[in-house]
C-alpha cells in the first residue's frame, strides 16, 4: 500500500497529468489514421521528450503505445483497413459486422475488449512486480547477455519464412551499432576516417529513417484511397454488456497478451493468433469466425491491448527491450541516466509502479475519450495518404534535426529512410535492425564484463539463471530447426504431388501426336493383320 502511495505521489503533478492526456488522445488519433502508427509517432516525438522529466516523457510515449491500438480498431472496423499493424486481425470480424449494419456494436465491443485487456495486464503486472523485484537481482552480466541473445534469436525466428533475411538484418543492426570510437581501447571502427562517424550512428537517426521517413516515402509514392464511412448508430455501452457475456475468452486472451508481451521478440501477433485460435476452438459457433463473430473480435482486441504493459517488463527489469517501440523508449532512460535493469527494480520500485499506474489511468482516459468522441474521430481516416506523407516528412525533420542540429544526421536518416522504403516494398522486417542495434550494444558490454570473470567456457553457465537461459536458447533453436526441416519436407511433398507434365501448347500437341500415331499404328497393324496374305 505504501508503495502505491509513493507511486501516486510521483504521478501527482500537472505535467504528468498533461502528458497522460496528450499521450492518450494523441495515441488514439495516431492509431486511427491508417499509415501512421505508434512507431512513427514515437520516433518523431522521442527527441522532444529528452527535455522532459523521465516520468513525463515516458508517460507520453507509453500513452501513445498503449492507446494507438484502441484508435487502430476504428479504421479496421469501419473501412477494413487496420490503423496499426496489430489491428489486422480486427478486420476479420469487425468489418463484417459493419457490412451487416452493426458498426457501433463492433466499435463498442472493440473498445471494451481493449479496455479489459489493458486493465487486466496492468493489474497482473502490479501484482507481479514484487516477484519480479526478487528475480531481477539474479541477473548479472552473463545472464543479461544470454537474455539479450535469446531476445535477438526470438525476434529472428518469429519471422517465419523470412528467418534468413531477418538474421542478416539483425547482423546489420549489430554492425551499425559497432561503428565509431570503441569505448575500451579507443580505436576507430568502420569510420572510414570521417569525423561524423566517430561518434557512432545514433539509434534515433536510424529509427526515424527506418520508421518515419520510410513511411513518408511509402505514402508519398502511393495513390490516395477513396474511403466510404458508414453512419454510426446504436448505444456505446452495449459492448461492455456483451463483453461481460464472454468472461472466459476475454481473460484467457488477456492472459496470452501478458505472457507473450513479456517474452522479447514475440509480441502482439503471436498473442492475437493464440487467443483467436483458442476462441475459435472453444466457441459454440466456430463457423462465425471471420464473418463478424463477437468472440473473435474480443479475442483479437483483448490480446493486443494486454501486450504494451507486459512488454515493459523485460525493459524495466532487465534493460532488454523485446520490440521496436520499447527499444525506442530505452533511449529516453539513457538520456536521463536512468539505467533500467535489476537495480531499477531494487532502488526505484515506486517509479516502476508509477509507470504501471499511469498506464491504468491512461486506459480509463482513452475509454472515456472514445465513448464521447468516436463520431468526430472517425473523420481522421479521410486524410489523404499523400498529404499524410507530406506531414510525416515535415515532422521527421523535427525529430532528426533537433537531436544535434546536424545535416549529416539528416542525410543518414534519409539513407535509412530509403532502406526502410525498400524493405517495406519487399515486405521484409525492419524490427530486427533496431533490435540488433540495441541488443547488440547490450551484448557487447555485458559479454566483455562477463568474460572477465570466466575461466573455462562452462563457467559461463554455472549459475542457475544463466543455465536456464542457455537451455531456453537451445530449445528455441531446436524447435526452429525442426520446424524448418518439417517445412522443407512439406514443400518437397507438395511439389511432388503437383508435379505435372508441361501444359504448353507444343507439349500438348506433341503428346497428342504420339497418342495419335500410336492409335494410327494400331489401326494400320490391325488392318494388315486382317488383310489376306498374298
Amino acid at each position: 500500500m505504501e508503495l502505491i502511495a509513493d507511486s501516486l505521489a510521483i504521478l501527482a503533478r500537472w505535467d504528468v497529468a498533461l502528458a497522460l492526456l496528450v499521450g492518450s488522445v494523441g495515441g488514439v488519433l495516431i492509431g486511427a489514421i491508417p499509415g501512421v502508427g505508434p512507431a512513427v509517432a514515437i520516433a518523431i516525438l522521442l527527441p522532444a521528450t529528452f527535455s522532459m522529466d523521465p516520468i513525463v516523457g515516458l508517460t507520453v510515449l507509453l500513452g501513445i503505445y498503449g492507446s494507438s491500438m484502441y484508435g487502430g480498431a476504428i479504421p479496421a472496423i469501419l473501412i477494413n483497413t487496420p490503423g496499426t499493424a496489430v489491428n489486422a486481425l480486427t478486420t476479420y470480424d469487425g468489418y463484417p459486422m459493419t457490412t451487416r449494419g452493426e458498426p457501433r456494436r463492433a466499435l463498442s465491443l472493440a473498445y471494451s475488449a481493449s479496455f479489459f485487456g489493458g486493465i487486466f495486464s496492468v493489474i497482473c503486472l502490479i501484482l507481479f512486480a514484487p516477484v519480479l523485484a526478487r528475480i531481477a537481482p539474479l541477473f548479472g552480466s552473463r545472464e543479461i547477455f544470454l537474455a539479450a541473445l535469446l531476445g535477438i534469436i526470438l525476434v529472428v525466428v518469429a519471422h517465419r519464412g523470412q528467418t534468413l533475411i531477418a538474421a542478416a538484418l539483425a547482423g546489420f543492426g549489430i554492425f551499425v551499432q559497432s561503428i565509431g570510437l570503441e569505448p575500451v581501447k579507443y580505436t576507430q571502427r568502420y569510420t572510414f576516417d570521417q569525423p561524423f562517424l566517430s561518434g557512432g550512428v545514433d539509434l534515433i537517426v536510424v529509427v526515424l529513417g527506418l520508421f518515419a521517413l520510410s513511411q513518408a516515402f511509402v505514402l508519398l509514392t502511393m495513390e490516395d484511397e477513396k474511403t466510404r464511412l458508414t453512419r454510426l448508430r446504436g448505444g456505446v455501452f452495449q459492448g461492455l454488456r456483451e463483453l461481460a457475456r464472454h468472461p472466459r475468452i476475454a481473460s484467457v486472451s488477456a492472459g496470452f497478451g501478458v505472457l507473450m508481451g513479456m517474452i522479447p521478440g514475440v509480441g502482439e501477433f503471436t498473442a492475437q493468433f493464440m487467443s483467436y485460435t483458442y476462441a475459435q476452438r472453444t466457441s459454440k459457433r466456430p463457423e462465425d469466425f471471420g464473418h463478424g463473430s463477437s468472440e473473435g473480435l474480443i479475442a483479437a482486441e483483448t490480446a493486443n491491448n494486454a501486450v504494451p504493459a507486459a512488454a515493459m517488463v523485460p525493459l524495466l527489469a532487465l534493460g532488454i527491450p523485446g520490440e521496436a517501440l520499447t527499444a525506442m523508449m530505452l533511449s529516453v532512460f539513457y538520456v536521463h541516466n536512468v539505467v533500467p535493469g535489476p537495480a531499477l527494480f531494487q532502488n526505484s520500485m515506486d517509479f516502476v509502479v508509477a509507470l504501471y499506474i499511469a498506464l491504468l489511468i491512461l486506459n480509463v482516459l482513452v475509454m472515456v475519450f472514445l465513448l464521447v468522441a468516436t463520431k468526430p474521430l472517425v473523420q481522421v481516416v479521410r486524410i489523404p495518404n499523400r498529404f499524410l506523407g507530406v506531414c510525416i516528412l515535415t515532422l521527421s525533420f523535427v525529430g532528426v534535426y533537433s537531436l544535434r542540429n546536424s545535416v549529416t544526421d539528416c542525410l543518414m536518416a534519409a539513407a535509412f529512410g530509403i532502406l526502410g522504403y525498400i524493405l517495406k516494398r519487399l515486405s521484409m522486417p525492419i524490427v530486427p535492425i533496431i533490435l540488433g542495434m540495441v541488443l547488440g550494444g547490450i551484448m557487447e558490454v555485458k559479454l566483455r564484463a562477463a568474460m572477465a570473470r570466466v575461466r573455462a567456457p562452462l563457467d559461463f553457465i554455472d549459475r542457475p539463471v544463466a543455465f536456464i537461459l542457455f537451455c531456453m536458447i537451445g530449445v528455441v533453436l531446436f524447435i526452429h530447426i525442426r520446424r524448418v526441416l518439417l517445412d522443407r519436407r512439406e514443400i518437397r511433398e507438395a511439389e511432388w504431388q503437383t508435379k505435372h507434365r508441361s501444359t504448353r501448347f507444343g507439349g500438348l500437341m506433341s503428346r497428342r501426336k504420339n497418342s495419335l500415331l500410336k492409335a494410327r499404328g494400331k489401326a494400320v497393324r490391325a488392318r494388315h493383320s486382317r488383310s489376306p496374305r498374298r
Partner: protein
Amino acid sequence: MHLAEPSMSSEKERRFAGPRRGQLVFALGFIAISGLLIVQIGVQTVWVDGVRLAAQPRFWPAVGLGLMVAMAGLHLWRLPWRRVTRFDRTEALRWLMVLEYCAWFMAYVLLVPILGYLPVTLIFVSALAWRMGYRSRGMMAISALFAISVVVIFKSLLSVRIPGGAIYEYLPGALRSFAILNL
C-alpha cells in the same frame, strides 16, 4: 539477363513471404555491400594483442558482418528465382523515385538555418502539397495551418532545439530575439 518466361509458380515460390519483384536485386546488393565491408575489416578495425576475443575491438563488427554475409548468402541461395526480370528492373527504378523526396527533405534541412524554421516550413509544406497534387485553396490553407501549428508546438511550446534562421539577424531588436526563440 533476360525476361522470365511465363511459367507456373512452384510450391517454393507460392510459399515465399513477400512479392517477387526486387527480391533478387536486393539480395545481390545486400551481399555485395556486406562483402565489401567485410573485406575492409582488417583496415577499419584493429586487433589488440593480449586481449581476450570477446573484448577485441574487431569482435562485434565481425559478428555483425559475418551474420550479414552468411545469412544473406543463404537467403540468396534459398531464393526461388535466379534471373533478374523486367519487373525487378521496374522495382529498382521505383526505389530510385524516392530520391526526389529525399532531395525535398534535404533542401528543407539546408534552408532552415538560413531562412528560419517558420518561413521554410510554410514554403515546404505548401510546395510539397502542391507537388503532390493538392492544389485547391482549402488544401493550401490546411497546409499553411499545419506548418504553423508544427512550428508553434515544437519550437515555441516544447522548445525543441532548432536554430533561428540567419535571416532573423536583420530584424529589429525585440522582434529579432522573439523570432530566434520562437519562429
